[in-house]
């Protein structure tokens, strides 16, 4: 069921955006796997078996992205995910990526939650203690032609409301997805926007450890 045709990754260092040059550049990265869509061209009711089979794909991509970014996991401060579905597929096929993609990145970053609860969409018991990857992984998806761009949202891994870390990264795989392909994407960065200065919750002020604030 899982057939990976291509893997594309990109890592960028942002030194400045016409303001002061950052002492340490912001590093952002994304990785995309181009898969054969086993459901292309017809309506398939039960697509959940593919979700489980995507678990190792998620873990592999998360590890590859971290390696490509060449930073320790402790330096990853934001994440996001997305999917582009080829035109013979259905948006719902992109939605299969939510659980395998999200939990793979959260586990990589030290999350200790309940995977079964996560899969079922059940609430987690928050510990009230500082932790890693407590926040929901923001996402976006669409049906698109080869070379379609997808703006993947990025937010802080521990508190979704950290305003300095609201960001997005554009993902585009030239030549994919073809009609019968799926592009599954993971994205991460090492911090805030390079000249963040619009106030709001700061990362240093995270206090509730509920994934939000």
């Amino acid at each position, binding site marked *: 069921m899982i*057939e*990976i*045709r*291509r*893997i*594309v*990754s*990109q*890592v*960028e*260092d*942002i*030194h*400045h*955006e*016409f303001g002061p040059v950052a002492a340490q*550049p912001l590093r952002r990265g994304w990785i995309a796997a181009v898969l*054969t869509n086993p459901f292309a061209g017809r309506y398939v009711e039960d697509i959940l078996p593919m979700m489980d089979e995507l678990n190792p794909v998620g873990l592999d991509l998360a590890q590859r992205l971290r390696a*490509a970014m060449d930073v320790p996991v402790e330096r990853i401060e934001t994440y996001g995910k997305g999917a582009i579905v080829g035109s013979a597929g259905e948006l719902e096929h992109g939605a299969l990526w939510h659980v395998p993609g999200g939990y793979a990145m959260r586990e990589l970053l030290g999350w200790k939650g309940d995977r079964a609860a996560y899969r079922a969409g059940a609430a987690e018991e928050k510990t009230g203690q500082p932790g890693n990857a407590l926040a929901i992984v923001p996402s976006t998806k669409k049906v698109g032609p080869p070379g379609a*761009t997808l703006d993947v949202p990025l937010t802080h891994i521990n508190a979704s409301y950290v305003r300095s870390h609201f960001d997005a990264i*554009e993902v*585009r*795989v*030239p030549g994919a997805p073809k009609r019968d392909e799926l592009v599954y994407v993971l994205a991460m960065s090492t911090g805030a926007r390079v000249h963040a200065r619009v106030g709001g919750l700061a990362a240093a002020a995270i206090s509730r450890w509920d994934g939000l604030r």
Partner: protein
Amino acid sequence: MAARIRKLIVQVDETRIEMNRTIEPPTRRAVAMAVIENPCAGRYVEKLDELIAIGEELGGLLGSRCVQALGIEPAQAHSYGKAAIVGESGELEHAAAILHPKLGATLRTAVGKGAALVPSAKKRGGPGTAIDVPLGHKDAAFVRSHFDAIEARVSDAPRADEIVVAVAVTDSGRPLPRVGGLQVSEIKGEDGLR
């Protein structure tokens, strides 16, 4: 450092299956892009030495970033190419100054050697403009299996007074080459052509 770099981007593209055929080992192409300030933007500058020096610096920097991203030894590189997108306050000749006089020498050092011409492309553009970077075998330009191209694109560049400089390096040719011509095994590697 001569170049004022705003962003540095490295992309790796690995093809494992093409037309339902497994590619073993997968073909891999890297493209490294630097977004730099154009020191000659907005006016006519006769002597382009500053851009030539930037090209010399970026050939080594971007070439070695590609080799590093592919995880190979420099000598394992197969093909290369270069390109530049000049923002609207610049001149095509600015791209030429970066690409042609001195970038090739430092790029060749980064990939071990390279007897062949480094194929190139240039254009004027705005943020998100894509350029197809031509690829050719680094030791013999006529190796047909390695005629290829890879797209380079930065979503927020070039601004009017910026230049996007791209260098591409591969460790392989096209995924399923079968249109004949000179083969890698037949390279003499002396004249850069065959």
